[in-house]
């Protein structure tokens, strides 16, 4: 009787706290209710609706969406060479951008993590971070002016009798490699930081040359971080359409989605499934390689 009276006098918050006490399952449930509602119901739900939408069609006369079931969108995706080319062009660019960024990023990240002194490291981290915070569009705009006929690239190359790449696929590759470079540097840097210096010393003390130490010790340990970085460079390239529009006349998956979304939503949905499938395959490989620890 008396305990009950005491309990009922407590404020509601305390009562709830008492309810959670010693009930870990209830705690987990309460913690996860909000995040799963958002991510499962809203986000995964939307992806599922997108999948369903891909089977709808548009009435060619009225332009209205017919919510039936048809594989028409997928048929045109597979059969029409235009779309096959676009998908392949996008994926190929994503691969090239990813490789380019890995090659440029690794020495920078390595120098930051293992060679530079305390002060040099701090300065380099800020130097690499800064462009990450400046606007995406500003950077694309800058490249657009630099690559133009009267831009700084031609101005610098013309006296040597050379000519810049101008607008086109090379420009897309160059600009995207530029844009996503920090996303590659930072995970590799963090991954290299995690490798204890004692491991490197041990390898050196056992007589390995710097190159052997690099190949046998550092590279295998840093590889998952490179894969983590590649998730971003790959995914960002797959979905971009603004850079493509600003520095080339090409069509990437994103451009077709963006241009068909108002007139042919079901087709846009079917096309959006392509990057989803590619990325899920990529992520499952990346996960096996241990990349998720480094995101």
């Amino acid at each position, binding site marked *: 009787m008396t305990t009950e009276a005491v309990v009922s006098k407590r404020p509601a918050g305390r009562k709830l706290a008492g309810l959670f006490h010693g009930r870990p399952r209830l705690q987990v449930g309460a913690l996860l209710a909000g*995040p799963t509602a958002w991510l499962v119901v809203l986000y995964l739900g939307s992806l599922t609706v*997108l999948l369903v939408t891909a089977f709808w069609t548009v009435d060619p006369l009225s332009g209205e969406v017919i919510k039936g079931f048809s594989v028409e969108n997928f048929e045109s995706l597979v059969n029409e060479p235009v779309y096959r080319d676009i998908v392949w062009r996008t994926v190929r660019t994503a691969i090239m951008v990813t490789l380019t960024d890995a090659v440029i990023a690794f020495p920078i990240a390595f120098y930051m993590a293992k060679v530079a002194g305390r002060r040099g490291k701090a300065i380099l981290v800020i130097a690499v971070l800064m462009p990450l915070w400046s606007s995406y569009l500003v950077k694309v705009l800058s490249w657009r002016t630099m690559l133009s006929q009267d831009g700084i690239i031609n101005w610098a190359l013309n006296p040597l009798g050379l000519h810049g790449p101008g607008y086109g696929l090379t420009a897309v590759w160059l600009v995207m490699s530029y844009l996503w470079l920090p996303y590659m540097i930072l995970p590799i840097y963090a991954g290299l930081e995690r490798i204890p210096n004692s491991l490197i010393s041990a390898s050196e003390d056992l007589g390995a040359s710097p190159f052997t130490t690099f190949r046998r010790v550092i590279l295998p340990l840093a590889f998952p971080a490179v894969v983590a970085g590649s998730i971003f460079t790959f995914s960002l390239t797959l979905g971009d*359409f603004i850079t493509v529009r600003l520095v080339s006349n090409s069509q990437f998956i994103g451009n077709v989605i963006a241009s068909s979304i108002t007139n042919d939503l079901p087709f846009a949905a079917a096309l959006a499934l392509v990057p989803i499938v590619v990325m899920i395959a990529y992520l499952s490989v990346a996960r096996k390689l241990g990349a998720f620890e480094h995101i």
Partner: protein
Amino acid sequence: MRLSRRARGLLRTAVGVGLAFIYIPLIVIGIYAFNSSKILKWPPPGLTLDWFTKAFESESARESLLTSIEAGLIATAIALLLGTLAAMAVARHRFFGRETISFLVILPIALPGIVTGVALSNTFTQVLGIPLSLLTVIVGHATFCIVVIYNNVVARLRRTSGSFEEASADLGAHTWQTFRFVTFPSMKTALAAGALLAFALSFDEIIVTTFTIGAGEETLPIWIFRNLFRPNQLPIVDAVAVIVILISIIPVYLAHRLSREEGGAAAGKGGGAADIAEVTAAP
């Protein structure tokens, strides 16, 4: 690491070339903001401050800036709440499907933005019948910002032992008290660093925004994009861009300070570097 002189020299060169690659475009666009001509020809014929005056006078630029700040703040607040909850569940409890939660949180940022944009806008307009507006933009932004907060908080919680919380409970603190006096203080800086990054992501986002924004509204990136193609507006866009770059130094500096303070607190564990990674390792 012990390196030969030559290897060191080669590495330095690679770093130098990399940094030049990163900074030359930013410097070029900075110079064009003072260009006296409307034509973007290199080198600029002369310099002027006119575009900055015009940029400050542009009402649409100002309005879109405020819209971006509003969207960024609300999206960050939602992400702070959801990301922290999910992180506490994953870092402090064992349950079925724990791995799936981390996968689920990463998914919106691992999939291209266009997928998130198209999927959400499709659901809003076709299924839920909600017209696109700033609210739908905020929902989209919050979705991909959750991961940033989540990663920061999980990393922090893993480095601080759960035994402090157990001790607190053993000493008679109830769930809220333990959170308020033990858990929260230990993750305060991780939350701040995550919030900065989440805000920056939202502030700069254009692809998800393009698909989820209402007809009459503009965030700053949308404003920039729309004005890029108007020849008369281009120099003003450039001036706005330079102003934005200069403002962005503040969060970089703050994030760096936060990670440095942490480095001090976690001294002896090599905490500084791990914290920098926390602040940075997510786009």
